[in-house]
């Protein structure tokens, strides 16, 4: 763990370079450019509003459903893109990995940081929506930052594991979209956490994303602090997972160049 953090600091310029490459290369020769960061969560929001609110009448804690859905969708999109991008990061940078040594986890960090740009763009629209629906932000909204840090740590942990696995088992690449979809429905993105029956709740909260996504909604829209016990459990799961995942990653890293 200490080695990983030291690597990050030592190779921060490399990380910055990767981030710049990812962002610049992503929007080269596209007509819409950075607008694509909006299109994904926005279109999901429209579909969710139609399906879950207009047709299925899913409750939304008294919040206008579009805001309710979008508040979760921008963070979920960030998470889901980070997982899919991070998982294939080793294989898609295979040429580099086979030729040059650098700490491989820098690629995962770069994916996360590049994703933050999309999140920022998508958040600008979110702020516009808050103004439109007259949702007043309070200081409680500052909770967003620790929540985001926790979410980034989780995404880093998950991709450490999946990217290392993907190098050896390309099955991961096929299974991942399905997994992410299931994961989203196991997370209160389209529905409020309140609809989960009490007996299921302890198990439900083992999904670290549940408390995080619910947390965003509480601190930004409802203006109340996150549910601390749930969040503490989420943090504990995240830290243990990331710790183990990094150990696995650093071990697997040794043979990446041979296997890719």
């Amino acid at each position, binding site marked *: 763990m200490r080695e990983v953090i030291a690597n990050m600091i030592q190779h921060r*310029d490399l990380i*910055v370079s990767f981030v*710049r490459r990812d962002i610049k*290369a992503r929007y*080269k020769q596209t007509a819409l450019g950075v607008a694509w960061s909006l299109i994904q969560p926005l279109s999901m929001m429209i579909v969710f509003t139609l399906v879950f609110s207009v047709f299925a009448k899913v409750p939304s804690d008294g919040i206008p459903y579009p805001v309710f859905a979008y508040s979760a969708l921008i963070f979920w999109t960030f998470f889901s893109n980070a997982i899919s991008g991070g998982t294939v990061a080793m294989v898609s940078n295979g040429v580099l990995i086979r030729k040059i040594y650098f700490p491989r986890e820098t690629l995962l960090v770069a994916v996360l940081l590049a994703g933050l740009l999309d999140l920022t763009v998508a958040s600008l629209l979110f702020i516009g929506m808050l103004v439109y629906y007259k949702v007043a932000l309070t200081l409680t909204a500052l909770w967003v930052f620790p929540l985001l840090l926790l979410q980034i740590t989780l995404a880093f942990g998950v991709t450490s594991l999946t990217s290392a696995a993907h190098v050896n088992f390309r099955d991961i690449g096929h299974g991942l979209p399905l997994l992410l979809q299931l994961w989203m429905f196991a997370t209160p993105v389209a529905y409020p956490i309140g609809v989960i029956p009490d007996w299921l709740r302890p198990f439900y909260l083992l999904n670290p994303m549940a408390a995080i996504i619910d947390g965003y909604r509480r601190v930004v829209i409802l203006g109340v602090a996150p549910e601390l016990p749930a969040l503490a459990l989420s943090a504990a799961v995240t830290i243990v997972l990331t710790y183990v995942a990094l150990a696995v990653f650093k071990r697997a890293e040794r043979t990446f160049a041979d*296997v890719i």
Partner: protein
Amino acid sequence: MADTVIELSSVSKRYRLRGGGWYVTSIKDELGRLSARLLGRELPPREEFWALRDVSFSLKRGDTLGLIGRNGAGKSTLLKVLSRVTVPTTGSFVTNGRLGSLIEIGAGFHPDLTGRENIFLNGSIMGMTRREVQRKFDQIVAFSEVERFIDTPIKHYSSGMQMRLGFAVAAHTDPDILLIDEILAVGDASFQAKCLNKLTELKAQDKTIILVSHNLTNITEQCKIVLWIDGGTVRMIGDPDSVVDAYLEHVAADMSAEESHHDTPSGRASSSLSILDVTIADEGARPQNGFDREDTVAIEIAYTAAGAVPGAVFGISIHDLHGHDLGGLLTDPDVITVTSPVERGVLRLTLSPLLFNKGVYTIDVHVFDPGTKRYYDLRRRAARLTVNGQSAGSRESTGYIHYPHQWERVK
């Protein structure tokens, strides 16, 4: 020792082969193995391959090591281990100082980014900070000679331009240890000269250099130590001349061990004329393979003819070990003719004096019809010629040919 910058002790590297691929498995494979193990059945053996075995050596600051060996001998794997791209299966190694590599230069380039953006990207992949790249930016651009296109995406560059840019970045990383793989084999002549000069400059700065090349002349000229690697093990390490000599001897012996390649050209006119064997002899017609420069060499070509083959031309061509044609000689069909059936005819070609420099050469022999340009017969590597003499470092001529010559001061 404080001056030791690289130290390898019994480094070995094992690869696993599986279904034709390099140890890429699927979950299905692994589940299959797992269930086989649980049921106590015998596991299908994993194929193994040792790319390196028990390699040990150490280098001091300022040493230049040449790495030679055939394709697949383990040279690239050794470079990969040294550059930390891959981890040895057993054994350990220590490097002291910043390591730069000119292996597959430009590997980190992104085609959609401009030359400028790629310099920063590649520079930081090679371990430079952004500020360092900033500082050396102008030098890098000047060295690469791509100033005009620096803000063009490099996918529009020619491959030569991409390579120059890659080399320019790599050469400015200011490493203490530099790994170079076959760098001198690419690029146009002026760029090669530039690379060689850079190499000399780096050597003058007391950098430690490991150079892989198939060009043995370069190796003997540039290196202080040569390591010959064969089948993943160190076959020999020592001063360039003796290692290169031993290597050449080995390659040549291996070549004659293979049966000389008897081609049956598809465009063959008929089987009426064919080559039986080729021998090399000295002045006294004693068969022999080793000669000194300026000796007399006789090449005897034995052939058989089923009938008269008027107009047939015999020829030889001499090649270096890489197969490059160094020149050949043909018979004049008006002088040498095959006018009647002959069971075993012999032609003798005398080279006097022998003008080749030290080295091992192979000789192709053929007989063809100059009118139809069709071969009656063609024997590749029909014979081998070893020339002894001064080593590359001390002789007064370079390359393969020693021209009869005279230097004088006329003014």
